[in-house]
């Protein structure tokens, strides 16, 4: 009895208390992994909510598009410069041609037009002077008029050829880039303007011709030649001025287009950034969803449900994978009540394995997706 009374120490209680805590810890460790698999089926349900464009692609797309935009910007700038140069060159060439043609044409036309004014003034003098030479010079004038007419026709043909060439170039330019539309319009406008000018010139020329015919004065030729020379110089100066103005306009338009393009690019950039941000947010979850989708598709392809499978059968199969995606176990966790149906589900999983895609996932996700549930219903796998 004395011994029993003395046994009032703390050795046994300490051992018991520590034992209780160790048991409690073991219970928390052991119980949790077993209670986990059920919630994992929720991730399978999530797999059905995947959008068409995966976030992974979107992220890549956004990055690519940004790179593409940068490239495009550079290219556009280069092209714009090249275009400007080409346009300048073309303009120069065109103008060279036009100068040859239009200079003659417009020179004559304008010369005639302006000469008309001068002529009006000078006519009185001219008539007096020319009256003597009129008879001889009229014949020459007629001959030269015919020559001028022939020349004009040639010029018209050349103009048409030039226009056809221009159109061809414009079409080629259109094919190359839509962004050149503005440029083309500009060119077209210029062409239209030129045409309009040419038409106006032609009209005037015709009027002039009528006038000329009416006047039929021989003295005009000399004066016309002189005046044409003067006015050609004036035209050249004017043209130079016009060219400069056109150049300025073109530069301004180019600057405006560049500004617009820049603002559009900025907008596109910000949109791309936004997309990328959203995409990154979903990327991790969708990457895993992708894996589940891959598994679903692979299993669906190899699933041959029995012919007698009715509408409301549901079988849940728990799939456990090894670290490299090989199938460790496919067990029916919730039977449909139809053994053939259950068997077909497990066989489908077995046939679809191994799921090598598992190795492409992050290590953290890999651990998460080495154990999941698949729900089979007649019609589809969930």
């Amino acid at each position: 009895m004395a011994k029993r009374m003395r046994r009032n120490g703390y050795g046994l209680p300490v051992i018991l208390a520590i034992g209780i805590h160790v048991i409690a810890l073991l219970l928390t460790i052991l119980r949790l992994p077993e209670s986990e698999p059920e919630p994992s089926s929720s991730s399978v349900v999530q797999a059905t909510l995947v959008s068409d464009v995966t976030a992974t692609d979107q992220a890549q797309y956004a990055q690519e598009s940004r790179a593409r935009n940068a490239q495009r910007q550079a290219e556009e700038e280069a092209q714009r410069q090249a275009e400007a140069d080409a346009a300048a060159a073309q303009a120069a060439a065109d103008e060279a041609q036009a100068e040859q043609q239009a200079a003659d044409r417009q020179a004559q036309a304008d010369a005639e037009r302006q000469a008309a004014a001068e002529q009006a003034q000078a006519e009185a003098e001219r008539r007096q002077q020319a009256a003597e030479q009129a008879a001889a010079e009229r014949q020459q004038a007629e001959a030269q008029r015919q020559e001028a007419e022939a020349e004009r026709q040639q010029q018209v043909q050349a103009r048409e050829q030039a226009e056809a060439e221009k159109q061809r170039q414009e079409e080629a330019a259109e094919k190359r880039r839509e962004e050149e539309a503005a440029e083309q319009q500009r060119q077209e406008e210029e062409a239209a303007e030129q045409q309009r000018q040419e038409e106006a010139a032609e009209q005037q020329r015709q009027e002039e011709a009528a006038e000329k015919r009416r006047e039929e004065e021989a003295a005009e030729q000399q004066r016309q030649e002189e005046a044409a020379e003067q006015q050609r110089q004036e035209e050249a100066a004017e043209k130079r001025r016009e060219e400069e103005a056109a150049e300025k306009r073109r530069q301004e338009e180019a600057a405006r287009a560049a500004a617009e393009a820049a603002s559009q690019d900025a907008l596109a950039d910000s949109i791309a950034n936004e997309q990328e941000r959203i995409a990154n947010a979903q990327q991790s979850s969708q990457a895993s969803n992708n894996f589940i989708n891959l598994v679903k598709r692979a299993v669906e392809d190899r699933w041959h449900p029995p012919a007698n499978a009715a509408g409301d059968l549901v079988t849940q199969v728990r799939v456990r994978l090894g670290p490299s995606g090989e199938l460790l176990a496919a067990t029916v966790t919730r039977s449909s009540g139809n053994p053939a149906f259950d068997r077909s589900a497990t066989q489908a999983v077995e046939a679809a394995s191994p799921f090598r895609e598992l190795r492409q996932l992050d290590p953290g996700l890999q651990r998460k997706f080495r154990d999941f549930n698949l729900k089979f219903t007649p019609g589809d796998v969930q």
Partner: protein
Amino acid sequence: MNDSMSIPHLIMNASLVVQLVMILLLAASIASWVVIFQRSFALSKARKEQKAFDERFWSGIDLNELYKDVPENHEAQGAEHVFRSGFREFNRLMPKTRSSEAVLDGVQRAQRVALSREEDRLNVHLTLLATVASASPYIGLFGTVWGIMGSFQSLSMAQQATLSTVAPWIAEALVATAMGLFAAIPAVIFYNRLSAVASRLLGDYEDFAEEFHSILHRNLQGRGNQAA
């Protein structure tokens, strides 16, 4: 399969303050369980001894024999301690005074001292249980609040807050509260139970002291009558 959410993993990944809180709570829990076991054993033993002593006392044995029967080196506990201190005082006073009141006063004082010692002995460490029971939920709550504060601080740096980014932090923080409750609940239950057992034992001792006192009183009255 979901290792990152298992409780040991959560504990290992918690922040330092939360881990300290958890260690403190674990120590409190272990200490409270040590006290629970030690007190349970001690009180059940005390009750057995009380029962055995009661039987012997009321078996009609002579009080002198009962007093001498117990070996001297044995430290008496419970009702026996009350009896022995009272009877020792009685035996010492009897030759010295003729006044029965003086003798009974002395016996009562000695018994009161013995009772007070027994009360102390029964209630030792129960205050620790009470402290653990009342304080550990608050300590655990502190750990949780601290952990959630940390989680929100780190969350403010994250670009987007999905449930999966918040969940581990909160689970981690809540482990502290769980541990606080884990320590507090047994402490509360066993504190109530053990203090009830102790107070009942103490009531038994007091009853015995009164009964013993009345026996002595009766004896003294008889002796006074004989002397008269």
